[in-house]
């Protein structure tokens, strides 16, 4: 174990946590407000990445500019999916909800495979892609830093929205008491629609950024669904506020394992899955 | 063996909330033992501790002389503990007979399938469900569902039968039938422990009554003794002034003071 890599690992972990928080907070929104555990969440992320890629290839759009186009596009996609399917299983057994979103995920992923093929796609030739600077021997890339800042701003924006706007209050009311919210005249169905669209939008924006950081393939989605689950589960299902801390924990664990354990890179994903598994099993045994 | 069911200092807390506080009682063989109290008094939690759906925080529970405090539900059942639920919970996707057969087949060790079918038929007949045996449970009405609860519990061949508000929502005639059923069960030597809100039923059935309030024992004795206990009257009357506990509780309070007129005999109100 090479401890001289520790500062770098910590910085990388912290920078990665922003994106994780952004993706997870969308999933937590769907779970907390609508009560739908969305297995297709990571696919919104993937769609965001490939839309940005297509905008770049077709029109030469800078990913920063693409954010402005991807956001409404994903909101519309999310809304359409809600209206055409999710809406009908709100009261269905949990199994049906889960399998429905699982099926939607399969459709989105394979649609992307049909359109873009299975090869990894990169948004190359962005002027700032290789930009970076060194602080005390720790290198910080402009892109990871930028995505960290943008993600945190978006998450903070969501928190502010939930805390201080009528829409946010409506969402919290619905989350706490579906029947009661209906009684005080909130249109629960519309709140759900907006929450689901917002959830897709946030994931899609995260996808745009991953398109610059990595070279995603259309199958990247499920992995991020699971990573988001790990974070949401760690924060406690439906706990939107706890997401940032959980994302930081998970991102740091991942980064530390990848850097400090020999051949640790292959273990990257295992960290997430081990966390999900252990946390779920441990919690289930504590209750009784 | 002087008691078939013995609870010693049973307590259960959820987080900081104490639902059952240091409850002790014994039920003798062939006794009908009632547990009453206002809503939220911890009666159903106590029943859940007895049947094993919850594990007590402290205390000890013996069934037929065996320590069952930490025993899983299915083993308590096979030892001789049957239970009918307050909120009827039939297995969907099964017929009436299939529901009862589950209890008959698994409620005791080593039951052959022909013996299980015999026991199921017997339980169906006793509860008057034999005509409905091939109906899907989704088609049953409330009275029939309550009967199914009792039939399933009886099919497990219990020595102790726990009944959780099986009379609630029944019309007087139906309740009388149910009372006869419970008496018949007791006459076979089965101990019955039941939670009930309908006071005339408690009066008619119970050999002894345990009154709970706020998770703890408030009084114990015969029906006449507990209903004349000023603390009991206060606990029931008190709730009527309390807005947050309106509804069913106040109905209970009324039924303590003025039992419905179709039943003769002393009412709690007159006793108090």
């Amino acid at each position, binding site marked *: 174990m090479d401890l001289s890599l520790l500062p770098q690992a910590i910085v990388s972990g912290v920078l990665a946590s922003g994106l994780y928080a952004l993706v997870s907070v969308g999933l937590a929104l769907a779970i907390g407000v609508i009560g739908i555990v969305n297995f297709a969440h990571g696919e919104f992320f993937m769609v965001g990445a490939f839309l940005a890629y297509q905008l770049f290839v077709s029109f030469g759009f800078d990913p920063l500019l693409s954010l402005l186009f991807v956001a409404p596009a994903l909101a519309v996609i999310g809304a359409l999916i809600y209206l055409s399917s999710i809406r009908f299983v709100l009261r269905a057994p949990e199994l049906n909800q889960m*399998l429905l979103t699982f099926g939607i995920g399969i459709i989105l992923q*394979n649609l992307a495979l049909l359109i873009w093929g299975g090869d990894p796609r990169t948004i190359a030739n962005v002027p700032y892609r290789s930009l970076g600077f060194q602080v005390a021997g720790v290198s910080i890339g402009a892109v990871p830093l930028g995505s960290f800042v943008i993600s945190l701003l978006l998450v903070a924006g969501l928190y502010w929205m939930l805390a201080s706007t009528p829409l946010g209050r409506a969402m919290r009311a619905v989350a706490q008491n579906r029947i009661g919210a209906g009684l005080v005249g909130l249109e629960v169905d519309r709140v759900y629609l907006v929450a689901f669209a917002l959830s897709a939008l946030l994931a899609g924006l995260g996808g745009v950024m991953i398109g610059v950081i990595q070279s995603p393939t259309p199958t990247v989605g499920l992995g991020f669904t699971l990573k988001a689950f790990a974070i949401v589960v760690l924060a406690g299902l439906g706990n939107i506020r706890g997401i940032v801390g959980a994302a930081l924990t998970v991102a740091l664990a991942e980064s530390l394992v990848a850097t400090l354990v020999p051949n640790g890179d*292959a273990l990257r994903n295992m960290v*997430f899955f081990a966390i*999900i598994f252990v946390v*779920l099993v441990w919690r289930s045994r504590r209750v009784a | 063996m002087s008691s078939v069911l013995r609870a010693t200092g049973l307590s259960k807390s959820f987080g900081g909330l104490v639902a059952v506080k240091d409850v002790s009682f014994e039920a003798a063989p062939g006794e009908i033992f009632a547990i009453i109290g206002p809503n939220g008094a911890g009666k159903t939690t106590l029943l859940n501790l007895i049947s094993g759906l919850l594990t007590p925080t402290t205390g000890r529970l013996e069934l037929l002389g065996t320590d069952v405090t930490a025993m899983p539900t*299915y083993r308590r*059942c096979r030892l001789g503990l049957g239970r009918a639920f307050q909120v009827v919970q039939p297995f969907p996707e099964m017929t009436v007979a299939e529901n009862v057969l589950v209890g008959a087949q698994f409620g005791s060790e080593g039951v052959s399938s022909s013996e299980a079918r015999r026991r199921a038929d017997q339980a169906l007949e006793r509860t008057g469900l034999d005509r409905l045996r091939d109906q899907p449970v989704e088609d049953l009405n409330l009275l029939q569902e309550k009967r199914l609860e009792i039939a*399933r519990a009886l099919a497990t061949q219990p020595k102790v039968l726990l009944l959780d508000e099986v009379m609630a929502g029944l019309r007087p005639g139906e309740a009388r039938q149910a009372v006869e059923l419970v008496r018949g069960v007791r006459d076979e030597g089965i101990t019955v422990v039941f939670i009930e809100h309908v006071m005339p039923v408690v009066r008619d059935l119970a050999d002894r009554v345990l009154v709970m309030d706020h998770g703890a024992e408030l009084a114990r004795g015969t029906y006449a003794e507990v209903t004349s206990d000023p603390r009991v009257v206060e606990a029931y009357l008190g709730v009527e002034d309390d807005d947050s506990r309106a509804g069913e509780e106040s109905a209970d309070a009324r039924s303590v003071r003025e039992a419905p007129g179709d039943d003769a005999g002393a009412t709690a109100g007159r006793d108090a």
Partner: protein
Amino acid sequence: MRGLTRDLVATAAFAVLLVFLPSVLREVFGRASVSYLSLATNALVLAVLALSWDMLARTGQLSLAHAAFTGAGAYTVAVLFKLTGAPLWLGIPLGGLVAAVLALGLGSVTLRLFGIYFAIATLAFTEVLKAAVQRLPTAVAGGAAGINVPALFRPTFVAGSMERWEVAFLRNQGYFWVYAGLLVVAVVISVLIQRSRLRAAFTAVRTNEQVAGVMGVNPARMKLLAFVLSSFVAGLLGAVEAHRLGSVSPDGAFSVHTTVLALVTPIFGGLYTTLGPILGATVLAGIEETLKRTFSEGYLIGYGIVLVASILFMPRGLVGLASKLVKRGGASTSGRVGGASGGAADAAAEERA
């Protein structure tokens, strides 16, 4: 017990049909029978996969770990022949056994997890297992690249007495019979569950585990039993697949696709029945073949659409649909319903009896 006898007789008839199917295809289609036979084999694989998943689902455990058990079976075979010179047919039962033991372990720690939590935990388990296998020493498990596996059948070309394509036919026929045997094993297990006290116990645990316990059913035992039976069959299947494909790799053996197929098929065909998964597999194998010919990648979209459509429009699957049609048809034009759907409905009706 009359029901059990009838089911077993039907299974035996089905088995005989499977034994003669290759010869019939060969007589009718000649050279083209090679590809028909592999399509039929795919349907068998899917049916075994689906039926084994359904057995577990009958206890309410909606597993996303099915790939872990087929993968465990496949790797057992691969590692066995890499390290030892074991007899060729030993790997398959061993694969089933390893998968069953693994299931016992996973099942024990997930006993208290329900619904969505169980699903997520089992999916996570699969990914951990995949990563762990990848991390095993290359000399044992071949790392990310995987290991080669010997073939079960190596028919040799005899010039003069046979044609070239017949070599491929004989190979396919061998695997077809092995999978047919697996399916019969799976069907017999499934029928025995459905025709014994286990059916009521499984259903009780699925629909209300707490009440099942109060009625004397031991939920932990039932859930573990289902897990072991289901994974044993899945392990056998994975082991045979390893032989047929000739190699295993972590990404292939533990692919999420396997899990997707395992759960979509019974949902499409009809959950908690013996016939539903088989019916679903037959239809889906045909759809998949068609899509595969059209698209090289992304053909799984068909499964996604089938899954979404099944949930939204056909919650009881093909079997449920068929029995509904029969009920409706029975009222107006009795006896005019085709044999296949009639049989399905009978089975569904029997299932309730």
